[in-house]
Structures are given as structure tokens and as C-alpha cells.
């Protein structure tokens, strides 16, 4: 049974249609990367899956029930959504902030129970947040903040994690550490992950399945090796690339080719 099933989904903003007739099935335990050039509809698809944007036509099924029929709270109990840009204007402490992830599991007037604290402790340990758990969220560095935001999402105890560019403003060290963590949650706890990723190589290292979008439609999707070919990338991104197998990870690695380099190389080998 697929965990998430998207059937003929079309949607957009006001009168502007962005994505058309998207069909996608995501099995439980998958690690899916959504890729595509700017304006291809990645964020729109993400907003539709996270129930921010209602479908114009078609539907999204989560465990065979239409997500538009799920209450906001019911949805948040099972699906964590981590948006890309996140600012916290109020200086909550890291602990307070993470405990807010327990919101969907609590009744309106129900106080925090020992189980809520137990979950918070678990994610704090898991994400190595202990050194700055007492600090204010507004004082954290980019890498620390991203961990805390993810930890809050994990405190929701989701079965499905939706990530919009989880590594976009992190240095390579933090990128790898964050992606490693998500990968281990995916492998060890069976957490299903759908992530928008800009970096093709990060997508290649971590995702089992890739969905390549072009102009609001799925250009191709399937196992990473099948999607990340130079033909597909060149066609969708309209730029020349070289795809080789990475010697360490054995995954496809995409090399960008600047046009000057391409010209020079053509001259060298007539």
C-alpha cells in the first residue's frame, strides 16, 4: 500500500495554474527527492502535499483517505512539514520551541505529560541539541536552528516528513550531517521522507527515488540512477552536464559544465 498517493493533481495560485495532472505514488519508508528548475512547480507541489494549497482538480490520498478531509490537527499528528525559510521573532527557548511540536497530540486544555517530555528528550539527544537546549532560539546559528526546527518536527512523531530545501543555507559540513540524520531516521525508524532538493548530488547520495519536474508536470520519476542521467538533466535544466559514478558512494554524480569549458574542450578534440 502506498503511504501517499497523488491522483491527477492540478493546482496553482489565484488564476495562475502551476502544476498539472501530477500522478505520484510514494510507498511507506521511501526517501523521495523532488527536483526541477526554478518555476517548475516544486514549491507548489510541496504546498499542495502539506495541505496549504487546496487542489483545483484531482486529489491527494494519505493512507487511502483524502487529505482535504483530514483536520489540521489530525494531519499534523502524522505529517511534519518543515518549510524552507524560518524566522522566530519571539525568543522562545529551544526546549519550549521543541515542545511545541507536541501540540497536535494534546487536548485543548491538557497540560504537557511525562510522555511529551520523554519525546522531547529523545529528539534533543538524537539531534545533539543538549549543549544549547536552554538557549533562546533567536541566538542560534543557521546549523543549530535547522536542527532545532527538525527536532520540533520530529517531536510531532510523524510517519511522513516533508522537507523544503532542508540544507539550503548550511555549509557543506552541516548539509551532510543534517542529511545523514534524516537518512538514518528513514532507514532505522521507517520514516517516509519527501524533500525538495536543489542540490542534485545531495539528492543522488540520499534519495531512493527522484521526481523530476518540468513546467508543472512530472518529466520523469523513478529510482535515482534512472532519473539522474545526463540526458534528463540536460533536457530539464537546459544546460550541459556530465554524469559519472561517484567513486566512494557509487551513486551518480552530476558535474556542471561551464560553456567556456565546453567550447575549449570541443576545440581540443575536433
Amino acid at each position: 500500500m502506498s503511504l501517499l498517493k497523488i491522483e491527477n493533481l492540478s493546482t496553482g495560485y489565484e488564476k495562475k495554474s502551476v502544476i498539472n495532472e501530477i500522478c505520484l505514488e510514494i510507498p511507506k519508508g521511501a526517501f523521495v527527492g523532488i527536483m526541477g528548475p526554478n518555476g517548475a512547480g516544486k514549491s507548489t507541489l510541496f504546498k499542495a502535499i502539506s495541505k496549504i494549497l487546496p487542489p483545483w482538480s484531482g486529489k491527494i490520498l494519505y493512507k487511502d483517505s483524502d487529505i482535504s478531509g483530514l483536520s489540521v490537527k489530525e494531519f499534523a499528528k502524522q505529517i511534519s512539514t518543515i518549510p524552507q525559510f524560518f524566522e522566530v521573532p519571539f525568543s522562545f527557548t529551544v526546549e519550549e520551541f521543541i515542545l511545541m511540536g507536541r501540540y497536535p497530540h494534546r487536548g485543548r486544555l491538557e497540560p504537557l505529560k511525562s510522555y511529551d517530555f520523554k519525546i522531547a528528550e529523545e529528539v534533543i539527544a538524537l539531534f545533539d541539541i543538549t549543549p544549547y537546549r536552554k538557549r533562546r532560539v533567536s541566538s542560534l546559528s543557521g546549523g543549530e536552528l535547522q536542527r532545532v526546527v527538525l527536532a520540533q518536527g520530529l517531536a510531532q512523531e510523524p510517519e511522513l516528513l516533508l522537507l523544503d530545501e532542508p540544507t539550503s543555507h548550511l555549509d557543506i559540513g552541516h548539509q551532510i550531517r543534517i542529511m545523514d540524520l534524516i537518512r538514518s531516521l528513514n532507514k532505522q525508524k521507517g520514516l517516509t521522507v519527501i524533500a525538495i532538493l536543489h542540490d542534485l548530488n545531495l539528492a543522488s547520495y540520499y534519495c531512493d527515488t527522484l521526481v523530476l519536474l518540468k513546467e508543472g508536470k512530472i518529466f520523469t520519476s523513478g529510482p535515482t540512477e534512472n532519473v539522474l542521467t545526463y540526458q534528463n538533466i540536460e533536457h530539464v535544466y537546459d544546460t550541459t552536464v556530465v554524469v559519472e559514478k561517484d567513486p566512494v558512494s557509487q551513486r551518480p554524480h552530476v558535474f556542471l559544465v561551464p560553456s567556456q569549458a565546453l567550447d575549449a574542450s570541443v576545440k581540443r578534440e575536433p
Partner: protein
Amino acid sequence: MSSTKTFSALILLTLILVISIAISLLTGGTDLSPNMIIDAILHPDKAGFAHTIIWHIRIPRIVMAITVGAGLAVCGTIFQAILRNPLAEPYTLGISGGGALGATISVCLGLSNILMVGMCFLGCCISIFLVYLMASAKKFSQLVLILSGVILSFLFSSLVMLIFSLSQSRDVYNTIMWLMGNLSSVDPMLIKISSPIILIVLILLILFSRDLNLLSLGEEKAYHLGLDAKKAKATFFILASLITGVCVALSGIIGFVGLIIPHIVRKILGPNHQIMLPSSVLAGASFLLICDTFAQTLIRPLELPVGVITGIIGAVFFIALLMKSRDWEVM
């Protein structure tokens, strides 16, 4: 914030409120000895001069200061949280200005006091509606909401000035005094009706304060965490606006309480609204009560409008607070 520290802060705030009430009972336009005051309080049925002063002047006025102070402080806290904006408060959102316009019109039409309060409330409601309308056209972006509030404020105060400059009414002086914020001349019936209303709404708001924490993370994040953010935001907006309407109708424009109390409480106790809301109730009530005591005693036998006092104390305190903080971290 540890729970013991929170608990002691709440106890301390309650103590401050109790002391402010005591001081306020002891002071006023007339000199009464403490014995006479205690006697009057302990025997509410007894008639007499002290009895009249205490039960018909001082106690209603204290109840009013507490109600309005608590109401404005909580409204400021809520507006700042849902709009994620440190400048939000009933006054900057134009809600108080609408009330002032309503009151001014009714004075020029020579309406009775009760009708004036009604008009004031109506003015608040209309401006709430206008701000809401202008902002919802732009899907409630926080910047638009504050901007439309500021614009409306200017519009309303210009209209008030226009009416004053055209008016021949001798009541203009009284209206100006009332507009500056005044707790002295209120119908006891109004206090009896509005205080319980505000109290009930405040309790409701405190019960829902956890939602405010989520909303302060932004509408989208709140939604992802399982809160129907649009609905919650609208509910908070309407409830807080209603409290503001009642407060302005009771006491005119008392600025700064809604801006400064939330800031002070947040600085000391942190931004968790489950702690902030009850603390704002206590701090706002004490603050306005203390200011009103000053207003009554500083230039005896004359009285200052309490809005002038809150403005001066508020501004000085606020500047000191900002100078003391390490960086420009106002939230």
C-alpha cells in the same frame, strides 16, 4: 524559564497588585484616615461620608483601572503575537482612534453619556472592521495590518480635530480630557456590566494562550503544527478588539499600556504566552492603578488625565529598557 521562577513571578505580581489596590484605597481627592477607610470597607451597609467615598468613588474607580489596565495589556500582548510585530497595540492599530471619533461625534450632537459610550464602542467596531477589511484584502500580512491601522489612526484623529475646530460646544474641553484617558467619571452601571465581560473574555483568552505561542511562529508554521491558524487568528483578533472597544468606551484613549506591559513582561519572563497572558493581566492592572493614583494626587485638588501619566512613565521606562538591553532585541 523554570516553573519555580514563573510561580514566584506570578506571586510577586499579585502582591504588587494587592499593594497598589491598598495604596489606591488610601489616596484620593479627599483625606480619609486609614481607620475610617477600614471601617467603611468592613461595614459595606453602614451609611456615612467615608462609606460613600470608598464604595461609590474609590472602589468603582479601582475596579475600572484594574479592568482597563488588564484589558489593554492583554490586547497588546495578543496583537503583538498574532501580528508578530512589536509595534502592535490597540492604539497603533487604529482601534482606539475609531472609538475617539465616535465619542467626539456624539458630544457634538449633544447625546447623553450612555449614548456617547455606545457611539465610542461603535467607532471601535467600525475601525476594527475597516482594518480587518483592508488587511484581509492582502491576506493579513502583518505589515499591511499595522500600516492600515496607522493610516486609520491618522484619519480618525484628523476628523476629531476637524470636528473640534468646527464645534461651538462647551463640552469640547470635557471631551478632550476624556480622550486623553480618564478613569474618574464613569457610570457605575457601565462598570458593573463591562468588568465581568472583560473578565470572562480574559479568562477565555488565557485558556487559549497556547495557540498564541504557535501563531507567534507565523501562520504557516502554526498550521503545520496542527492549529487552524486562520480561524484562530481571526478569533483572537475579534476578541482582543472587543476588549479594546470596551476599554476605550470606559476610559478614553490610554496609550502605552498595551505597548509597554507586554514588552516588559516578555523581557522578564520570556515569550511563552501561557505565562505572559496572566502576567500581563496582573502587571497591566497594577500599572494603570499606580498611574491613576499619581493622576489623582500629583496636582491635588485638580486631577490629571491618566493617559498623560501612562504616556510619560511608559515612554521613560521604555527608553530605559531599550538602552539597557544588550542589542536591539526588542522582542
